[in-house]
């Protein structure tokens, strides 16, 4: 115990003395969540668009007004000719174009089917999909109104025809703000990158400096050495989690509906995994540079397979299987559940169990690889 405490104390003294490490530890997580909180936003609003009215009738103007006033589109230009649309789309200045063809108003007046042309830039598939959906629904609404008006004119005033209408209630995130979905996951990201890096660097640095040699000849047992090196990083990880949660709550107004204690417990279970990974990286690296590259190599699949942006359910079956071995997968579910849905132990114990089992396995693997030897 004395030996472990000696190492913990030494780590803190060294941390305090490192003038660059201190800001990295406590300023960068806050900066990261601020940056990512604004950047990691999947909501599509104010899509840059151009509208081209070739018909110039009352009907076409009414349709385009509805489009422009919907709030989803920002009209960049109103070209007179179809050919003038191309440069806007090609140059990336507009993601969507709406063209009302000549004869639109006449066709409607003559009760013939009329169409509008919507051109979308598919290279930005996210924006294109959403833009097309908005535009289509605006057109449909318009069509519906025309049908009703026509019916009314034919049958005279009376009850409106019955329609099935979907009444949508979005729970937990009523405005469907993707930021609420992203921010809890950013906590996982910050925690993961910080703890893997700290743990791997902290051990590899001792190898590089030659101090590991001196540690090896002391009677400190490997498990004591590992505990002494990793305990400080666990504490730092928890403090950073606190910072990130505070920024999420106070700055971005992300809800925190569940228990804060459970949240921290989940962070601890998650860090069991990430610190084990850091330890593993240190056993396969001789220099800090190698450790850095190995860390990046590990972190990428953790982000992509864990469901940070792309839901695990959308992946091909093989990748879904692989993602079962990725701790972030369970942590993202747990933390989104706690923060957004107020989920508690009854809902999240499977995630906690998965994190503990996976973490223990990773830890065992790393400890077995970690030998108190030079070669």
């Amino acid at each position, binding site marked *: 115990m*004395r030996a472990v405490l000696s190492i913990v104390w*030494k780590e803190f*003294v060294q941390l305090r003395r*490192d003038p660059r490490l201190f800001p990295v530890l406590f300023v960068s997580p806050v900066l990261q969540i601020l940056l990512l909180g604004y950047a990691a936003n999947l909501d599509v609003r104010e899509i840059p668009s151009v509208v081209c009215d070739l018909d110039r009738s009352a009907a076409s103007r009414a349709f385009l007004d509805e489009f422009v006033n919907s709030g989803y589109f920002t009209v960049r230009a109103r070209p007179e000719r179809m050919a003038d649309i191309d440069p806007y789309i090609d140059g990336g200045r507009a993601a969507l174009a709406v063209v009302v063809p000549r004869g639109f108003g006449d066709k409607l007046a003559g009760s013939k089917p009329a169409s509008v042309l919507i051109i979308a830039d598919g290279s930005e598939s996210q924006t294109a999909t959403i833009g097309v959906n908005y535009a289509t629904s605006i057109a449909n609404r318009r069509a519906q109104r025309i049908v009703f008006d026509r019916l009314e004119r034919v049958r005279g005033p009376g009850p409106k025809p019955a329609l099935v209408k979907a009444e949508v209630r979005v729970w937990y995130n009523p405005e469907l703000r993707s930021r609420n979905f992203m921010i809890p996951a950013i906590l996982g990201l910050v925690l993961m990158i910080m703890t893997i890096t700290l743990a791997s660097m902290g051990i590899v640095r001792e190898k590089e400096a030659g*101090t590991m040699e*001196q540690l090896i*000849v002391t009677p400190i047992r490997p498990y004591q050495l590992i505990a002494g090196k990793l305990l400080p990083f666990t504490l730092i990880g928890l403090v950073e989690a606190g910072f990130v949660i505070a920024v999420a709550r106070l700055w971005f107004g992300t809800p925190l509906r569940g228990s804060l204690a459970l949240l921290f417990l989940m962070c601890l279970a998650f860090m069991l995994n990430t610190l084990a990974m850091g330890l593993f990286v240190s056993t396969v690296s001789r220099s800090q540079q190698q450790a850095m590259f190995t860390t990046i190599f590990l972190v990428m699949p953790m982000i992509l397979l864990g469901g940070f942006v792309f839901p695990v359910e959308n992946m091909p079956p093989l990748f879904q299987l692989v993602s079962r071995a990725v701790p972030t997968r369970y942590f993202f579910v747990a933390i989104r559940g706690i923060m957004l849905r107020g989920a508690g132990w009854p809902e999240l114990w499977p995630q906690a169990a998965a994190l503990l089992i996976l973490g223990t396995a990773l830890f065992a693997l790393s400890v077995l690889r970690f030998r108190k030897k*030079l*070669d």
Partner: protein
Amino acid sequence: MAEPAIEVRSLTKRFGDFVAVDAVSFEVERGRIFGFLGANGAGKSTTIRMLCGLLDPTSGAATVGGHDIRREPERVKRAIGYMSQRFSLYGDLTVAENIGFFGGAYGLSRRALAERLPWVLGLAGLVGRERSLTRTLSVGWKQRLALGCAVLHEPRIVFLDEPTGGVDPASRRRFWELINGLSERGITVFVTTHYLDEAEYCNDIRLIHAGRIVAGGSPRELKTSVIRNPILEVACDRIVEALEILQKEPWVLETSIFGMSLHISVEDEEEGRRLIAARLGREGIAVHRADRIMPSLEDVFIHKIEEQAGTGEAGEARP
């Protein structure tokens, strides 16, 4: 005789195809200063690292303080102190913090540490500099602090790997006084060096070359037993030219240049002196003096390595 402090039997270490240490065997008596001499890459550090449990031997056996290095590495670690070739304390901790940390690592109680701290500071000559960051100390001070940390837990045996590398002569001398002091307290000191003059401080020496022990004994034994033929120290004019001339003579056994004189090994002292004067006289080189000398350890070392090279057994020493 008591059980030796260190006993090594056919200890071997290979790195791939390279045999760093080739079946070395030796014993170190308790309380002695044991010097392991050799060029860089001869296998000194590899041997010491195996004995301290830093490297696993490829084959062979050794006991340190009565403990088998393979079966009881943790017991070995309690019995020994180790000072590495590279400075391996924490540069970003202060002097006192380093001592405190290693005290804790060796499991010293707070009280024991409080007793040992002034002793180590005194030993290292760092009283009053407890709060200095270790990286700001001069090399000589760092070495002495490293020695202090290595003996903090009062080990019976200390391993010092090139402790005086890169230190000025005055600091080297002071360091050897410390080593003598440890020896007087009954501590066995195992020290490696490539400074041959330092070997004179040792009670017992092994010369290692290309992973093999080529000679051993006390400095005096080595000088008298290894080289039986007399060595003449010849002071003359144009020594480089004289060396080249003498090297070609069949009656000259070995030659080397030592500062401003030549060391010439011959079969017989009197005859050799006469032959040298005559041969160099013919070239018009005046011989001022040709005295028989006790061979230096350097003579012994060169003799042994040339002997090995002659039999074709020794490989090249790696730099």
